[in-house]
């Protein structure tokens, strides 16, 4: 039995040669996730993988690499009792509002307010 993430060997067109640097938000998210992992021992990289491997194919395919990991991190924070998605969403809403933006938590997009 294999998950939707297990795509090695399937046809997928030519491999792109571009190698963009991670955006700043992704570096901060990964640093935070690593800090929680290492200094709180609250979650493992294996749990992170398990989480994005089970978040559903639509979300997995629709989100980018760092978006998937950050979404999985947020879900694990709730699973481990360190935060709630409600609190995380409320904080996102506040940050977006300060920028004149609105978050769609279902579509996982940010748009003009």
């Amino acid at each position, binding site marked *: *039995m*294999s998950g939707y993430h*297990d795509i*090695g*060997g399937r046809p997928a067109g030519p491999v792109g040669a571009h190698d963009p640097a991670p955006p700043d938000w992704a570096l901060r998210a990964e640093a935070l996730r690593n800090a929680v992992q290492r200094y709180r021992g609250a979650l*493992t990289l*294996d*749990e992170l*993988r*398990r989480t994005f*491997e089970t978040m559903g194919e639509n979300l997995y395919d629709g989100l980018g690499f760092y978006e998937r990991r950050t979404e999985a991190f947020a879900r694990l924070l709730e699973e481990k009792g360190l935060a709630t998605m409600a609190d995380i969403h409320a904080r996102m809403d506040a940050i977006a509002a300060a920028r004149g933006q609105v978050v769609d938590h279902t579509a996982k997009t940010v748009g003009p307010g």
Partner: protein
Amino acid sequence: MSAARFATGARVRILDLPTPGHVRTPRYLRGAQGIVERHCGAHRNPEALAYGRDGLPRIDLYRVRVSLAELWAGAAAGDVIEVEIYDHWLAPC
């Protein structure tokens, strides 16, 4: 800690275990034969770590070299892929 089951150079087959949940053996490698290129230490089992368990006892990890021709038609002769596979996913052959 007991000695590793496979020596460098050992011929192994990658199994197609029905393990549910998180595993680290991709489907394109299931059933392939290869050679142990090196022992990569013993590590906590990621299949258990993925669910918050301690993953003990540690499991030997091996880098296995597989001929690409074994996996895909049209592969160039001599090309190989090396993948790190846990001991319980391997059988001697």
